[in-house]
């Protein structure tokens, strides 16, 4: 019995350690396939349940973006994701700079290039279309 507990403890500890080393293939594939000349900078893993209301995009983070740099924001949905990931970026004055979802046509862009001319800290927001539940990754790269 004692042996079994020790073995289980070791296996559990090993499992925990190994878990930290694994890179989510959704992230690596999305980052590496962001396009030629795209240099990976950051990723955001988004997993959300169905929204109670659809007023605002739910996943929010901040990121500094720098003048004279062209960024590519790529959205990749997991195979089993019900919703499609959408992105919006606001500046420090809360002004919407871009959205990957065109409300008029209903079109969702899988990537958006942003030619930044104003250095600052921007609010990056993600959600799934119509507040659906879903699993996806947003990758930020730099392009030449």
């Amino acid at each position, binding site marked *: 019995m004692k042996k079994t507990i020790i073995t289980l403890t070791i296996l559990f500890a090993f499992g925990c350690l190994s878990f930290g080393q694994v890179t989510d293939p959704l992230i690596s594939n999305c980052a590496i396939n962001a396009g030629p000349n795209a240099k990976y900078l*950051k990723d955001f893993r988004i997993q959300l349940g169905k929204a109670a209301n659809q007023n605002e995009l739910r996943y929010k983070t901040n990121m500094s973006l720098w003048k*004279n*740099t062209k960024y590519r924001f790529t959205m990749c949905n997991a195979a089993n994701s019900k919703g499609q990931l959408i992105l919006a970026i606001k500046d420090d004055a809360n002004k919407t700079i871009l959205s990957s979802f065109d409300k008029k046509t209903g079109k969702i862009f899988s*990537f958006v290039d*942003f030619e930044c001319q104003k*250095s600052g800290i921007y609010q990056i927001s993600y959600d799934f279309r119509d507040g659906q539940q879903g699993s996806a990754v947003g990758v930020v790269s730099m392009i030449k």
Partner: protein
Amino acid sequence: MKGRVISLMILVVFGFSCRNSKSKTAEFVFPQSDSIPVSEVEKLSPEAIADISKNISSPVEIANLLQTLQVPFSQNYLAESIDANRQSTSFDKALKLGILGADLGYLNMYEKTGSSLDVLSSIRKIAEDIKVGQFFDFESIKRLSKNKSNLDSLLFISIDSYNKIDNYLRSNERGQLSALMIIGVWIEGQYLATQVVNVFPDKMLSDRIGEQKIILNDLLLLISPYCKHDPEFTSLCKDMQDLKDKYRDIRITYTQGDPVSVEKNGGLTIKQTETSVVNMSKEQLTGVIEMTKNIRDRLISNK
């Protein structure tokens, strides 16, 4: 009387409409208080700290700018004096891990992957010393560095490894080491930019140095909770505060405009027409260059 009221109203309306006009400029200023109260720092949630750490610009972005400006690679900018075997405290190790990470980014961006193997082995030693070696995929990085087959993958794995270390440290109550690593990455990137601008004076590069004012406060927020922990932290906090003082009179102003969007190749391209403008004198830039060099040289010296 009626005429005066109407004139006054016109003036008020005119005044407001001027404030909202497209030619309006705003200015970036540090928050009112120069020092951040400890109580404010303690209120920061783990999410806020994670956000701050994401705000800090990647050294890859500085290296990319240097490449755009066709600045040749120089080995002289690297922190070659760092001896991984002579780092005694966790403070030293975490800071050096950040500095070497920035050097690795610079080497990778310039495709100097052969030279990066030495830096990699130092990173490995230090990462293992502070028990985060398991998050660094050394074998894959080494393999990709050797055969130069896929630089995009190499960049991804290198940055991803650092992100994992940062997440792990923050979620395991070792936030002070995460803060040090981030400061190390930033100071080395700043050193690289300031050393290059000395030799290749360029407006775009000096602007990027001036724009670091935007994130300096966040960097100070990250380390502020630890400033009184020990003399090493106290000294680093003082260094960062001194650097912030050098930035005090550098002005960043903004002009307004609406973004322009174009659909191309299935994607959307947004061109920003708002701009940020850095107003920095030669003396102010020199002050930042000197202060950055002093701090960075002190940090990499093997005591």
